[in-house]
């Protein structure tokens, strides 16, 4: 007695299934979007993080950009040299960045918790952006690190740790993606290209105030005295707008920074760990 019912329902379902399968098959062939196989291949090489550091919304869009020649093969920041080389090989292109150098986020402030001169006490949302945008920050120095750790929270690779009120960047984990640069309301972090063999040195100050004002506001700030220009390696230090800055492309492994570090009256020229040293200390 189930016979007819079973047959009817089974054949209806099977018929419908066949019909839809047919429609799908038709749609697949007729309405297919042609995708450049190159895009898929490049996307396979990319790390697939969709971090957006390249300026494209995600890895797929970057792959398209590279395939169309809009973006250079070394656009992927977290992927580094390896990915860049693989993509360049695939497309038969040359990688533009030099070997033996690395990009790294460098923090240009050296005022730890003890050195920061606070004005009053900040209550409210624990965020540098909020503090800066709503109360102008609560430090005497208008340029220094506020220390509420927005950069550490923004870092997609956990490369930043807040130590004593300052971001500490792990050179192994940092991919120079620039998220922290974007986030920092005071533009303290800058992406620099360093020579892996040379010294990892920075001017740990961001203050554009005049020397006398800096002395009043911070004990470890750059007072733009210009000593580093004279005693440091040639052409590396330059004082502009009341602040000493380093030209990282101007020195190699032989450059000697001892004098500059030693002579800086406020001690704001400092060494920081290279990837090698960082892994040694771990």
């Amino acid at each position, binding site marked *: 007695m189930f016979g007819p019912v079973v047959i009817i329902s089974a054949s209806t379902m099977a018929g419908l299934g066949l019909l839809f399968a047919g429609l799908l098959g038709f749609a697949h062939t007729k309405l297919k979007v042609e995708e450049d196989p190159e895009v898929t291949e490049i996307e396979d090489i990319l790390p697939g993080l969709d971090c957006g550091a390249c300026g494209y919304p995600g890895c797929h869009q970057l792959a398209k950009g590279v395939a169309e020649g809009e973006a250079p093969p070394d656009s992927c920041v977290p992927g580094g040299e390896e990915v860049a080389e693989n993509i360049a090989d695939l497309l038969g292109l040359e990688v533009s960045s030099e070997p033996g150098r690395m990009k790294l986020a460098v923090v240009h402030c050296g005022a730890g918790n003890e050195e920061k001169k606070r*004005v*009053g*006490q*900040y*209550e*409210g949302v624990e965020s540098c952006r909020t503090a800066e945008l*709503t*109360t*102008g920050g*609560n430090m005497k120095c208008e340029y220094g690190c506020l220390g509420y750790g927005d950069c550490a929270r923004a870092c997609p690779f956990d490369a930043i740790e807040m130590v004593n009120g300052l971001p500490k960047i792990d050179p192994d984990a940092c991919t120079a993606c620039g998220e922290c640069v974007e986030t920092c309301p005071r533009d303290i972090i800058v992406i620099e290209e360093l020579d892996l063999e040379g010294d990892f040195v920075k001017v740990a100050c961001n203050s554009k105030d005049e020397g006398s004002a800096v002395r009043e506001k911070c004990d470890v700030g750059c007072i733009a005295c210009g000593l580093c220009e004279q005693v440091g390696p040639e052409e590396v230090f330059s004082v502009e707008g009341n602040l000493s800055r380093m030209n990282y492309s101007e020195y190699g492994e032989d450059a000697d920074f001892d004098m500059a570090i030693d002579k800086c009256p406020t001690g704001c020229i400092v060494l920081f760990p290279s990837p090698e040293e960082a892994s040694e200390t771990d």
Partner: protein
Amino acid sequence: MNRLERLMSDISSYTEDNPYLQHITEVIDTVRSIVFEPGVSADKSPFLRDYIEIKRYMFAVVLAVAPAALASIYFYGWRALAMIVVSYVAGGIAEVTFTLIRKEEITEGFLVTGILFPLTLPPNTPLWMVAVGIIVGVILGKEVFGGTGYNIFNPALVGRVFLTTTFPVATSSEWLIPMTGGWAGFKQFSVDTVTSATPLGVFANSGTLAPLRDLFFGNIPGCLGESSALLVLAGGIFMILARIIDWRVPVSYLGSVFLYSALGTYLWPNQVAPPVFQLLAGGLLFGAIYMATDPVSSPTTKEAKWVYGVFLGVMTVSIRAFSGYPEGVTYSILLMNMFAPLFDEMVMTFRYGPIQKPYK
């Protein structure tokens, strides 16, 4: 202390005016500011706050529900209190476990869920079932969404629906007849006079209406908290006057139930009960006052609150009249919880629609 302060203030003004000592003024002022000046801050105004803060907010809800909880002991004996205690302990453990894993502070919202949940259950629910229900409510109703403030559904109702669907016999087929007179339930642990149905169930089966007086004072079988309409109303009025809940949701909910059932009872007298009976029977008042007004799962804007309340009323009466369930408050509130953010979104579009993106 005062003399020292004055001395330092004098030194400071002296050095400030003296050309040779001017530059040490800063140092002295800094020392002074650390020791004496007001512990001032660079935060943002305003510096005044309303008296309602979250602890008082939650405490006020517990206070408002306390008369109904006491009444449940009066009607059903000390076992009712045991259910509340079990709910607090089991739910508390679930809550604390989650906050520990998440490394967050424990929020006060749980105090409310913990007492509201057992009051929505039939008085003879086994204690272990109460524990299971509140754990499910806290975890699936709240914590999986991200904790207090992020849940879509009312956690107490999630727990209740879980119990009614998984243990239908224990949670909806047997009801106890409440005790009255003298000390009633305060003298004994539990009640064992069993009946088969609540007034709504009786109406659904036979079309007989329970006396309104009993409904109002609470002499009817039902869930723990919903027995006495009087006490539930009193709690609601207290919360509205204390600005704990917004009056719009209960008023629009109850109002739409009244209007819709007045119309319905005229059109389909056998299925739709008359309006006053609808208002007083079952969990409607309890749900409208304590559940539908839960701030997290109800809409935020005034306009959306009206819409929300009206939809709740229509749905509740429809479920009561035309579905297999005699009671529809729980399901309608849970269903409308899903729409609450949507209503808010609609109000936002309505409010800002014409002037969207003013620049560019």
